[in-house]
Protein backbone atom coordinates (compact mmCIF):
# COMPACT_ATOMS: atom_id res chain seq x y z
CA UNK A 1 0.00 0.00 0.00
CA UNK A 2 1.21 3.53 -0.81
CA UNK A 3 2.69 5.24 2.25
CA UNK A 4 1.95 8.87 3.02
CA UNK A 5 4.73 11.10 4.36
CA UNK A 6 4.25 14.63 5.72
CA UNK A 7 7.13 17.12 5.34
CA UNK A 8 6.99 20.18 7.63
CA UNK A 9 9.41 23.04 6.91
CA UNK A 10 8.85 26.76 6.47
CA UNK A 11 11.05 26.78 3.36
CA UNK A 12 9.49 25.58 0.12
CA UNK A 13 13.02 25.01 -1.20
CA UNK A 14 13.83 22.78 1.79
CA UNK A 15 10.61 20.77 1.35
CA UNK A 16 11.41 20.21 -2.32
CA UNK A 17 15.01 19.22 -1.50
CA UNK A 18 13.93 16.75 1.21
CA UNK A 19 11.22 15.23 -1.00
CA UNK A 20 13.61 14.70 -3.91
CA UNK A 21 16.27 13.15 -1.62
CA UNK A 22 13.70 10.72 -0.26
CA UNK A 23 12.40 9.82 -3.73
CA UNK A 24 15.96 9.10 -4.91
CA UNK A 25 16.67 7.03 -1.78
CA UNK A 26 13.83 4.60 -2.49
CA UNK A 27 10.71 6.40 -1.27
CA UNK A 28 9.52 7.25 -4.81
CA UNK A 29 6.32 5.25 -4.41
CA UNK A 30 5.21 7.35 -1.42
CA UNK A 31 2.67 10.15 -1.41
CA UNK A 32 4.13 13.37 0.04
CA UNK A 33 2.16 16.06 1.86
CA UNK A 34 3.66 19.42 2.86
CA UNK A 35 3.09 21.91 5.67
CA UNK A 36 4.96 25.15 6.35
CA UNK A 37 4.90 25.18 10.20
CA UNK A 38 3.98 23.06 13.21
CA UNK A 39 0.34 24.06 13.61
CA UNK A 40 -0.42 23.45 9.94
CA UNK A 41 1.39 20.12 10.36
CA UNK A 42 -0.79 19.09 13.32
CA UNK A 43 -3.93 20.01 11.34
CA UNK A 44 -2.79 17.87 8.43
CA UNK A 45 -1.95 14.94 10.75
CA UNK A 46 -5.51 15.06 12.11
CA UNK A 47 -7.04 15.13 8.63
CA UNK A 48 -4.78 12.30 7.34
CA UNK A 49 -4.98 9.60 10.02
CA UNK A 50 -2.82 7.01 8.21
CA UNK A 51 0.46 8.91 8.00
CA UNK A 52 3.48 6.60 7.84
CA UNK A 53 6.05 9.26 8.74
CA UNK A 54 6.43 12.92 9.67
CA UNK A 55 9.61 14.74 8.66
CA UNK A 56 9.99 18.06 10.45
CA UNK A 57 12.25 21.07 10.80
CA UNK A 58 12.70 22.62 14.27
CA UNK A 59 13.08 26.33 13.67
CA UNK A 60 9.75 27.51 12.19
CA UNK A 61 7.38 30.46 12.68
CA UNK A 62 3.99 30.18 14.48
CA UNK A 63 4.64 26.75 16.03
CA UNK A 64 8.16 25.33 16.05
CA UNK A 65 9.08 21.67 15.73
CA UNK A 66 9.71 21.04 19.45
CA UNK A 67 6.34 22.48 20.46
CA UNK A 68 4.63 20.47 17.71
CA UNK A 69 6.34 17.26 18.85
CA UNK A 70 5.17 17.86 22.43
CA UNK A 71 1.59 18.27 21.19
CA UNK A 72 1.90 15.10 19.10
CA UNK A 73 3.19 13.00 21.99
CA UNK A 74 0.31 14.22 24.22
CA UNK A 75 -2.32 13.32 21.61
CA UNK A 76 -3.48 9.69 21.61
CA UNK A 77 -4.21 9.80 17.87
CA UNK A 78 -0.83 11.22 16.86
CA UNK A 79 1.67 9.95 19.43
CA UNK A 80 2.45 6.72 17.54
CA UNK A 81 3.55 8.47 14.29
CA UNK A 82 7.32 8.15 13.71
CA UNK A 83 9.05 11.53 13.36
CA UNK A 84 12.33 12.26 11.62
CA UNK A 85 13.87 15.64 12.46
CA UNK A 86 15.88 17.44 9.76
CA UNK A 87 17.34 20.64 11.14
CA UNK A 88 20.14 23.14 10.72
CA UNK A 89 20.33 23.57 14.52
CA UNK A 90 21.77 20.15 15.35
CA UNK A 91 24.20 19.55 18.21
CA UNK A 92 24.39 17.32 21.29
CA UNK A 93 22.19 19.66 23.36
CA UNK A 94 19.48 19.62 20.69
CA UNK A 95 19.63 15.83 20.51
CA UNK A 96 19.23 15.61 24.31
CA UNK A 97 16.17 17.84 24.06
CA UNK A 98 14.64 15.52 21.44
CA UNK A 99 15.28 12.20 23.23
CA UNK A 100 12.16 12.39 25.47
CA UNK A 101 10.11 13.20 22.38
CA UNK A 102 11.01 9.80 20.91
CA UNK A 103 12.10 10.86 17.46
CA UNK A 104 13.07 8.18 14.96
CA UNK A 105 16.19 10.09 13.94
CA UNK A 106 17.86 13.49 13.64
CA UNK A 107 19.57 14.57 10.44
CA UNK A 108 21.56 17.77 9.98
CA UNK A 109 21.07 20.18 7.10
CA UNK A 110 22.37 20.22 4.44
CA UNK A 111 21.25 16.68 3.60
CA UNK A 112 24.12 14.81 1.97
CA UNK A 113 22.72 11.61 0.46
CA UNK A 114 25.87 9.45 0.64
CA UNK A 115 26.14 10.27 4.37
CA UNK A 116 22.48 9.56 5.19
CA UNK A 117 21.89 6.62 2.83
CA UNK A 118 22.15 4.06 5.66
CA UNK A 119 19.75 6.02 7.90
CA UNK A 120 17.18 6.14 5.11
CA UNK A 121 17.63 2.43 4.36
CA UNK A 122 16.98 1.66 8.04
CA UNK A 123 13.95 3.94 7.99
CA UNK A 124 12.51 2.08 4.99
CA UNK A 125 12.84 -1.19 6.91
CA UNK A 126 11.20 0.38 9.98
CA UNK A 127 8.26 1.51 7.84
CA UNK A 128 7.91 -1.95 6.29
CA UNK A 129 8.87 -0.80 2.80
Amino acid at each position, binding site marked *: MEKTILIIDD*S*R*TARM*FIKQCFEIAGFAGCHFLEASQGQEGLDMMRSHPKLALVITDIN*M*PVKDGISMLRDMRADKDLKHIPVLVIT*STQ*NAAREAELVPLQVAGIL*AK*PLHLPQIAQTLTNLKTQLGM
Partner: protein
Amino acid sequence: MNASITALNNAVQDTLETLAFTEAVPVAAARVEPLSAPFYVTTLEVKQPYAGSIRLMIGRELAISLVSSMLGGSDPMGDASVQDGLCELVNTISGRILAHLVDNSSSFDLGIPQTIFMETARPRDPDVLVRQTYALNEGSIELELAFKKGQAA
Protein backbone atom coordinates in the same frame (compact mmCIF):
# COMPACT_ATOMS: atom_id res chain seq x y z
CA MET B 1 38.51 34.92 15.65
CA ASN B 2 40.26 32.08 13.77
CA ALA B 3 37.62 29.64 14.98
CA SER B 4 34.91 31.97 13.64
CA ILE B 5 36.52 32.21 10.20
CA THR B 6 37.14 28.48 9.95
CA ALA B 7 33.57 27.72 11.01
CA LEU B 8 32.25 30.27 8.54
CA ASN B 9 34.33 28.90 5.66
CA ASN B 10 33.41 25.28 6.35
CA ALA B 11 29.73 26.12 6.68
CA VAL B 12 29.60 28.19 3.49
CA GLN B 13 31.60 25.72 1.41
CA ASP B 14 29.76 22.60 2.55
CA THR B 15 26.33 24.21 2.21
CA LEU B 16 26.92 25.67 -1.25
CA GLU B 17 28.49 22.46 -2.53
CA THR B 18 25.68 20.28 -1.19
CA LEU B 19 22.65 22.47 -1.92
CA ALA B 20 23.72 24.47 -4.98
CA PHE B 21 26.53 22.29 -6.43
CA THR B 22 29.02 25.12 -6.59
CA GLU B 23 32.48 25.63 -5.17
CA ALA B 24 32.98 28.62 -2.89
CA VAL B 25 36.56 29.74 -2.34
CA PRO B 26 37.33 32.29 0.41
CA VAL B 27 39.25 35.17 -1.15
CA ALA B 28 40.40 38.65 -0.21
CA ALA B 29 37.68 41.13 -1.21
CA ALA B 30 40.18 42.95 -3.45
CA ARG B 31 40.57 39.83 -5.64
CA VAL B 32 37.01 39.95 -7.00
CA GLU B 33 34.68 42.54 -8.49
CA PRO B 34 33.03 44.46 -5.63
CA LEU B 35 29.40 43.53 -5.03
CA SER B 36 27.25 46.19 -6.65
CA ALA B 37 23.54 46.97 -6.36
CA PRO B 38 21.00 45.61 -7.02
CA PHE B 39 21.49 42.64 -4.73
CA TYR B 40 19.72 40.47 -2.18
CA VAL B 41 20.50 40.66 1.52
CA THR B 42 19.43 37.71 3.64
CA THR B 43 19.69 38.16 7.40
CA LEU B 44 19.20 35.65 10.19
CA GLU B 45 19.08 36.76 13.79
CA VAL B 46 21.13 34.79 16.32
CA LYS B 47 19.25 34.81 19.67
CA GLN B 48 21.18 32.41 21.91
CA PRO B 49 23.83 31.96 23.28
CA TYR B 50 24.88 35.44 22.04
CA ALA B 51 22.86 38.08 20.25
CA GLY B 52 23.86 38.94 16.73
CA SER B 53 23.18 38.19 13.11
CA ILE B 54 24.49 36.34 10.07
CA ARG B 55 24.05 38.07 6.74
CA LEU B 56 24.52 37.01 3.10
CA MET B 57 24.87 39.54 0.29
CA ILE B 58 24.56 38.31 -3.28
CA GLY B 59 24.00 39.89 -6.69
CA ARG B 60 20.64 39.31 -8.33
CA GLU B 61 21.83 37.22 -11.31
CA LEU B 62 24.02 34.97 -9.18
CA ALA B 63 21.17 34.49 -6.68
CA ILE B 64 18.84 33.36 -9.46
CA SER B 65 21.48 30.97 -10.80
CA LEU B 66 22.20 29.44 -7.36
CA VAL B 67 18.57 28.93 -6.42
CA SER B 68 17.82 27.53 -9.87
CA SER B 69 20.53 24.90 -9.25
CA MET B 70 18.99 24.09 -5.85
CA LEU B 71 15.59 23.56 -7.44
CA GLY B 72 16.94 21.40 -10.28
CA GLY B 73 16.57 24.14 -12.87
CA SER B 74 13.00 23.21 -13.74
CA ASP B 75 10.55 25.92 -12.66
CA PRO B 76 10.65 29.51 -13.90
CA MET B 77 12.22 31.54 -11.09
CA GLY B 78 9.93 34.06 -9.42
CA ASP B 79 11.25 36.52 -6.84
CA ALA B 80 9.53 34.60 -4.02
CA SER B 81 11.39 31.42 -5.01
CA VAL B 82 14.74 33.23 -5.07
CA GLN B 83 14.10 34.75 -1.64
CA ASP B 84 12.98 31.39 -0.20
CA GLY B 85 16.06 29.65 -1.61
CA LEU B 86 18.39 32.28 -0.16
CA CYS B 87 16.69 32.01 3.23
CA GLU B 88 17.26 28.25 3.21
CA LEU B 89 20.92 28.72 2.29
CA VAL B 90 21.47 31.20 5.14
CA ASN B 91 19.47 29.09 7.58
CA THR B 92 21.65 26.07 6.80
CA ILE B 93 24.93 28.04 6.83
CA SER B 94 24.00 29.69 10.15
CA GLY B 95 23.13 26.39 11.82
CA ARG B 96 26.48 24.95 10.74
CA ILE B 97 28.38 28.01 12.02
CA LEU B 98 26.66 27.97 15.41
CA ALA B 99 27.10 24.20 15.76
CA HIS B 100 30.85 24.83 15.36
CA LEU B 101 31.05 27.86 17.64
CA VAL B 102 28.77 26.81 20.49
CA ASP B 103 29.83 24.29 23.10
CA ASN B 104 28.22 20.92 22.33
CA SER B 105 26.36 20.86 25.64
CA SER B 106 24.72 24.27 25.04
CA SER B 107 21.79 24.77 22.75
CA PHE B 108 21.54 27.69 20.37
CA ASP B 109 18.55 29.57 19.09
CA LEU B 110 18.19 31.16 15.68
CA GLY B 111 15.48 33.42 14.29
CA ILE B 112 13.68 33.07 10.97
CA PRO B 113 15.73 34.29 7.98
CA GLN B 114 14.50 37.29 6.00
CA THR B 115 15.55 38.32 2.49
CA ILE B 116 15.23 41.81 1.07
CA PHE B 117 16.04 43.10 -2.39
CA MET B 118 18.19 46.26 -2.39
CA GLU B 119 18.31 48.65 -5.32
CA THR B 120 21.06 50.75 -3.72
CA ALA B 121 24.08 50.11 -1.52
CA ARG B 122 23.41 49.81 2.20
CA PRO B 123 25.34 51.33 5.10
CA ARG B 124 27.94 49.09 6.77
CA ASP B 125 26.97 47.44 10.07
CA PRO B 126 29.29 48.69 12.87
CA ASP B 127 28.97 45.42 14.86
CA VAL B 128 30.48 43.22 12.14
CA LEU B 129 32.98 40.77 13.61
CA VAL B 130 33.87 38.90 10.42
CA ARG B 131 33.27 39.83 6.80
CA GLN B 132 34.35 37.25 4.23
CA THR B 133 34.13 37.21 0.44
CA TYR B 134 33.78 33.94 -1.51
CA ALA B 135 34.55 33.45 -5.20
CA LEU B 136 32.02 31.21 -6.96
CA ASN B 137 32.04 29.99 -10.57
CA GLU B 138 29.84 32.85 -11.71
CA GLY B 139 30.63 35.69 -9.32
CA SER B 140 31.11 36.33 -5.63
CA ILE B 141 29.14 36.56 -2.40
CA GLU B 142 29.79 38.19 0.98
CA LEU B 143 29.04 36.78 4.41
CA GLU B 144 29.04 38.78 7.63
CA LEU B 145 28.91 37.68 11.24
CA ALA B 146 27.81 40.52 13.51
CA PHE B 147 27.68 40.11 17.28
CA LYS B 148 27.02 42.67 19.96
CA LYS B 149 30.17 44.02 21.59
CA GLY B 150 31.60 41.77 24.29
CA GLN B 151 29.91 38.68 22.85
CA ALA B 152 32.35 37.88 20.08
CA ALA B 153 32.88 34.17 19.54
